[in-house]
């Protein structure tokens, strides 16, 4: 590649990384807004649409849609004007546009959220105010949010691969960090579904659904990151990213609810929990799980185990350990059950207590399968450069 082409490529990478960074900020706004909103509804209220937490959530969603649309349109325009560095080899064609695939995907996620928002408005007119997290439009909204998170990961992955090929170390490192963050955000957000389990279906045949769903989302996200980055420590770094999101999310929700209640001079509800209901329930031990997974992947590499064996074993051992060390589960279940199903709390807790070891074993099996799936999905990111 000649010097001029390299300059053009660097310029285009910079442009895309700035777009991806704005997308990341939008994802973070949604994430923190969501934590703020759930605690606000639980501890203070009032339950209306016109609240500041909703403003933060929807500005994140709108921001993600706006930046995705902008990047798609700007790149398509460059493509049509035959700007150097923007051609068939660096863009993905889709319904007449030419842009990085990640921005198309993030745009679809934002569109889903917009449609989900309209659906939610209609839903509330029919079924009343929010007292449950688990409704069809809420599922669409949360899931749409996950999609634009994954779209951002695609953009960063594409920039890592492009920078690696052209030896642009700084861009590669920046994009790798962006990728980890962009995997960490959807991974953290998807743990919301675990909280939904506590609220809606805490147990199935005596097995804790919270733990089993954790065995799906955690290895999926962590192994996807490991598969793409292929360096010892990648899983731990992703785990640290999730833990940072959890801690900052918890502190932010507590502070922001207190601040807004003071500003609006609204008292806390009598049954306020003073607890971040989303971030507070994300797995605390994810870094321990991540370190275990990293060590097993390293040992697999060192002793020549088949990749499938190492990855599945890492997932299984990591999540089995997580089930055992999550000694706080009784408090989590009690808190939720006392709110949603107080009359069944004791029966459900007894059933889960009885199925504790079976839950850990089933979670390990699930994690082994899902870890391999996560690894396979990670390969798609290694083959993304446009």
């Amino acid at each position, binding site marked *: 590649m000649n010097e001029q082409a390299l300059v053009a490529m660097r310029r285009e990478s910079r442009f895309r990384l700035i777009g991806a960074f704005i997308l990341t900020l939008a994802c973070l706004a949604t994430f923190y807004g969501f934590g703020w909103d759930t605690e606000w509804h639980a501890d203070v209220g009032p*339950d209306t649409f016109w609240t500041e937490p909703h403003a933060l959530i929807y500005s994140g969603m709108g921001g993600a849609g706006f930046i995705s649309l902008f990047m798609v349109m700007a790149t398509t325009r460059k493509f049509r004007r035959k700007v150097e560095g923007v051609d068939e080899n660096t863009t993905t064609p889709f319904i007449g546009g030419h842009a990085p695939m990640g921005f198309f995907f993030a745009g679809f996620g934002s569109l889903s959220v917009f449609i989900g928002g309209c659906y939610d408005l209609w839903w509330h007119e029919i079924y009343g105010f929010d007292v449950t997290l688990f409704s*069809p*439009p809420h599922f*669409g909204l949360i*899931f749409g949010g996950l999609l634009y998170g994954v779209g951002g990961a695609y953009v960063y992955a594409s920039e890592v691969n492009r920078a690696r090929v052209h030896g642009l170390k700084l861009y590669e490192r920046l994009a790798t960090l962006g990728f980890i963050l962009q995997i960490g955000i959807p991974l953290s957000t998807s743990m919301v579904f675990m909280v939904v389990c506590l609220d809606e279906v805490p147990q199935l045949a005596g097995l804790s659904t919270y733990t089993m769903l954790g065995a799906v989302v955690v290895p999926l996200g962590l192994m996807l990151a490991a598969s793409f980055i292929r360096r010892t420590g990648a899983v731990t770094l992703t785990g640290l990213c999730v833990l940072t999101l959890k801690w900052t999310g918890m502190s932010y929700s507590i502070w922001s609810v207190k601040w807004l209640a003071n500003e609006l001079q*609204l008292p806390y509800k009598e*049954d306020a929990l003073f607890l971040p209901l989303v971030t507070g329930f994300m797995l605390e031990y994810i870094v321990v799980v991540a370190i275990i997974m990293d060590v097993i992947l390293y040992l697999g590499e060192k002793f020549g185990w088949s990749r499938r064996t190492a990855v599945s074993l890492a997932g299984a051992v990591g999540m089995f350990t997580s089930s055992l060390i999550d000694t706080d589960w009784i408090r989590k279940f009690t808190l939720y059950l006392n709110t949603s199903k*107080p009359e069944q709390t004791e029966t459900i807790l007894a059933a889960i207590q009885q199925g504790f070891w079976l839950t850990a074993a089933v979670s390990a099996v699930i994690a082994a399968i899902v870890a391999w799936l996560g690894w396979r999905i990670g390969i798609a990111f290694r083959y993304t450069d446009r």
Partner: protein
Amino acid sequence: MLLRMLISIAICLVLLPAGTGLAHDVKARGIVYVQTIQVGPYTVDMGFNEYPIPAKKSLQVFVEPIDGYPGKKATYRLIPPAGVAEKFYQRNLLPYPGIDDAWVLQHPGLPYEGQWTWEIEIDGPKGKATGRLPQFKVLPPPGIPYWTGWVIGIFPLYGLLWFAYYERKRVKRLIEQDNGARV
């Protein structure tokens, strides 16, 4: 300054409907039906935002003891129609921020139509007593069938499945091209 103005407007919007006295605030609170029940020595007004209530639709009820709620503790119990295997729902009645004359009861939509039994228990200075709301009939659920709601609600999943199919084809082709060098 602008933030303060916006917050002041929000305070007004939020607190305006939350003034005083259920009887005086029926319109402001969107109450369409008031039922007075006797819970032992306590007389209680129950103000419904919708009546009769359809199944699956969330309930909001203002529960106001005529002589105020301070010094009293209350719980409500919703017992499903006869023949339904599900257990009853029991919750505490609690004050709501900004409303100082009535407990506000917010309950997720009741799952079944039919004749529910609604009990309220109050423990206060005049002792503990239980009262019943007679003839609390829940109508069939409104809107589209719930399963249709889910079919629509999970629509981002359809896009994801299509994308997974597209990616599978794309990556497979690229792996064949470079003999799996990046796998």
